[in-house]
Each structure stands twice: as C-alpha cells, then as structure tokens.
C-alpha cells in the first residue's frame, strides 16, 4: 500500500530512486560511519567515498581548514583501492535496502576503465559516478574534467564497459561548464552531477604559510551554493539527461531551489558534517513543501522555475 504522502520517486538516468536525496561522495564515508546517527535506508541513494584502482594514502595534514561559511579540503582521495572497496566496504552497504553508487577516480583513462570493469563485475553497485573533477590530486583529477576531448574519451570508454547507469561528475573550475556537460552527454553519459568543489586557498598570516599542506583545497559548504545553483540552472537548460545538483545544500529550502531550477536530484555533502541527519531532515522538508503546495508528484516541481517571474 502507498502512504498518503506525495510521490518522491525520480529517475536519474535509468536508476530509479525513491526520493531525490543522495549523499555526496567523500562526505559520508562508506555509509557505516553514519549508521548510528540516521536511518540510512531512507536515503534515495548512497554515493560512497571515491575509489581508485590502487590504494591511495592521500595528502599530508593539515587537510581541512574552515573559511567563512565553508571549508577547504585537500584530502587527496585517500582510499583503500577498488579491491578492498569491493571486498570489505560493499558487503556492509549491501545489507541495507538502499541503492549504492560508487564514485570512481583514475589517474589515466586505463585506470577509469579498469575500476569500471571491476565494479561492474562485482554486481555490488547500482550506478557509477565518474569523478573527472577532483581538484586535490596532482595527476588525473580536473584534467579530465576541464578538457572536453578528455571528458568525452573517459565517458565513451566507461560507457562501453558497463551497463550500469553512468553519472559524470563535473568540476566548476572551468570557463564553460555547459560545454563539458554537452560533451559528456554526447559521449553517452546517463546523467551529470555538479558541482565538485571550487579550488581555493587560505594563508596563515602570522607564519606566512598555507593553512593546508597541499596549499590549495576544494571549497564546499554554503559559500559555494549560489555558484552551484547558477551552474545547475545553466546546465539543466542545455542538456536533456538528468542533472544532479550539489553544492552547499544545508536544508530543504536549499534543495528545493536546485530542484526548481531543473535538478532531478540533489546530493548533500558538507551538511552531513554539522548535522548527521541532514539528509533525512531534507527529505522530510521536501515532502512538507510538496504537501503545502498541493503537489502530488515531485516531478511536477522539477524544472518549473519561472525565470521571468511572470507568476508575480
């Protein structure tokens, strides 16, 4: 039996999820970390911490620094590698009836291909998010996300090797994010997610040294939201595939802004750090909003932005 609430189900490129609220990669660990603090089965999907072919030690500390209404991170994609991910992290996540999306990182196209193959064969994940946008690693990272030819090549190769829905995660550190979005759509991407973090830095003036050992880091949190929203709005107008909005979403109102300008779903990142149940609070808040506006199906809200304010 269906409960009386509004329909929250959305389709993100062939992956049907029960509501549009996902966790952003790198901010929710491998799920287990947050199990004591919220009911993770209520999530639309879980996107796990980025995984690479070989284990990575990540960057030296300090790796994080708070800045006004945001934070810089330079974790450097520390992860145990895809083999350990499949053997030790996935079985735990699979116990819960919630879709799991792996976030894939590579230094070369071959890395992306190999990780894609291994994850597809593992049968343990419901979708792939391809991270061509990490600003905190020396090799790979944004190179793939800022060069349209490279972005196209990665997308094509990955799509060739898997039947899983493929989401390409875009970097905001480019001149024209719409160009990259269109390119990966052409390459066969099932959806795009944006934004990854904005490259920034912070200086300790007493010692005249960077606050982060890596010097630069990725900015996330409320400080990036207006930029993320603008980019999601622009991209949603330019591509036909679903767009997943990310960046500074702290509460249901923030999430609704993204949905209204055209995001099919949203990812919650930094908000998890300050409120471990941010995601489920946001699901509740979106439902309340739909009820308040007498909207029976969330898909009737998505992309209904009245740009010229004619309704007023």
């Amino acid at each position, binding site marked *: 039996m269906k409960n009386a609430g509004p329909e929250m189900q959305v389709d993100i490129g062939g992956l049907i999820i029960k509501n549009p609220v996902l966790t952003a990669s790198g*901010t929710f660990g491998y799920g287990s970390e947050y199990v004591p603090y919220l009911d993770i089965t209520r999530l639309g999907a879980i996107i796990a*911490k980025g995984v690479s072919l070989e284990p990575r030690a990540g960057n030296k500390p*300090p790796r*994080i620094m708070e800045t006004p209404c945001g*934070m810089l991170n330079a974790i450097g994609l520390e992860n145990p590698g895809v083999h350990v991910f499949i053997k030790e992290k996935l079985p735990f996540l699979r116990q819960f009836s919630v879709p799991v999306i792996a976030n894939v990182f590579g230094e070369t196209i071959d890395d992306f291909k190999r990780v894609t193959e291994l994850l597809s064969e593992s049968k343990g994940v419901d979708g792939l998010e391809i991270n061509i946008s990490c600003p905190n690693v020396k090799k790979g990272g944004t190179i793939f996300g800022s060069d349209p030819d490279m972005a196209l090549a990665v997308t094509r190769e990955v799509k060739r090797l898997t039947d899983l829905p493929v989401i390409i995660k875009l970097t905001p550190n480019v001149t024209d994010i719409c160009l990259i979005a269109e390119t990966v759509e052409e390459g066969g991407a099932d959806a795009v997610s944006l934004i990854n973090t904005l490259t920034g830095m912070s200086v300790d003036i007493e010692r005249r040294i960077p606050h982060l050992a890596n010097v630069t880091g990725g900015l996330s949190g*409320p400080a990036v939201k207006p930029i993320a929203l603008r980019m999601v709005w622009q991209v949603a107008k330019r591509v036909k595939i679903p767009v997943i909005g990310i960046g500074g979403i702290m509460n249901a109102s923030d999430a609704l802004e993204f949905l209204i300008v055209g995001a099919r779903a949203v990812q919650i990142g930094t908000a*998890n750090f300050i409120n471990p149940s941010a995601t489920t609070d946001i699901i509740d808040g979106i439902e309340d909003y739909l009820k308040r506006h007498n909207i029976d199906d969330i898909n009737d809200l998505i992309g209904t932005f009245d740009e010229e304010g004619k309704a007023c």
Partner: protein
Amino acid sequence: MNGKIVRNEQISAGHFLLRVKLAESFKTPMPGQFVMMRDPGRIDPLLGRPFGVYGFERSQEEVTVEILYKVVGKGTLLLSKLREGDFVVVLGPYGRAFDTHPEAGKVVFICGGIGVAPITYLAEHYRSLTAARDAELICYYGASKAENLVGIKELKRICGRVITSTDDGSHGFQGLITERFSADISLYDTGSSKIYACGPRSMLKELSELMAGSSVFCQILMEERMACGVGACLGCTVLLKDGGGRGERARVCVDGPVFDIGDIHWG
C-alpha cells in the same frame, strides 16, 4: 542534540567553564571521549568544534556536560559570548576512550595547558575506580604562567600529588613539564604504572622521546582539526608508525583521539 547553557563563566584570563544541560538520551562519555559543539544559529563558523569532556553528571533531575575551554580563535571566542539560556548543538560522545586499569599502582597524568580538561575527567574516573585501594594518582601540570594553571584546585582534590611547572617560574618548576617529569621518570618504570598525557603536540612529541624504548603503558590524547567527528571526511588523520596495527593513517576522531604513544609517527 540541542543543549541549554546553564553556565558559561570566565575562570581565568581567556579560560571558560561551560556547563550545558542535555537530554536524558545523551550517552555517558568515557574519559578521553569528546563532543562536537556549535552554535545552531550560525553557519559562520560552520563546523562544530571538538572539546574533551571535563565533567559529566547524570542525576534524576538532569544530565549535564562540562567543558573547560581556552579562547584561541573565532569559534571559541563566539562560544565565550553565549549566555545562560542560549542553545548549543552538542554531538557525541565521540571517539575512542582511554583504556583504564583498576589494578594500577601508580597512575601518572601529564598535562600541558588546556590539556588539563580531559585529564581531569580521567583522573576523577580513576579515583572512583581505585577508591578501595591505595593507588597513587600523581599529576604533572604545566602552563605558561601561574594564572593559566586552570582547574588546579580540582586536580589537587582528586590527585594525591600535583606537580607544576611554568615557563616563567611563577608556579612550581621553571621550564617544561616534560623536563620536570623526566627527573622523576625512573619512579614509574614498573609494570603497575600507567601514564596518560594531553597537551600541545610539542609536549606529546617530547614525551614520546622520553618514553622511547620503555614498556610502560602510556596513552595520549591527540588534537587535530575536525569536520565530521565520525570518521567520514578523513580530514583529521595522523600518521602512524609502521606496525601501528591500524594501517598507515588513523583518524583522530574515531581511531583516536586516544592513542598508544608508541604508535604515532611524529614526522
């Protein structure tokens, strides 16, 4: 969860004692565990700030947690401006607690500066743990000057001996507390001695040099900047020595903040 401030008082220059009333469901923290605290009305500062537990009471009427903190930056300055009746978000208790030994003979606490806060909670725990026996509780406490030896009265109430040092010699030994401790180190070279320390990284590093090669039990509480506090962001990692047993890096928030002193790679 939201907690209500019942006291937030300056106890010496730049040092505050905060007492927060919590819901009954808040778990009783073990010594060494910490809480993440933030002002729910603000997104700047955005992240919670970690604080060791200084005191905790659970009675029929209420549950309260006590934090002893030093103002060092934006977050702690704003915290010091909150008043009785204001709300703070308190998450936790988080992290790995100190291992305690009811059979211990001599229990030695070494603290530098505000490191006294979590050490006091541990010492209190030891006092009740060893109440029936004549275990010796000894504390070495160092600060820059006499007035910064905050909470010393409380420590004297709990420990049989409190030995102090100050940089300017205004109280106790003049010099570093690790220097003062090193003069006594042979007194504790037995299996029944247990050593615990919390303080600035430089102090802990020096202690690790003093303890190198020793088989005496020694645990320390480490501090790192944190974002999530639950092991998800990998922002708070420290490097471990080979054979640390928990892989190359450890997260201070969940694998710590308590570590065996020999496991840390000081770099």
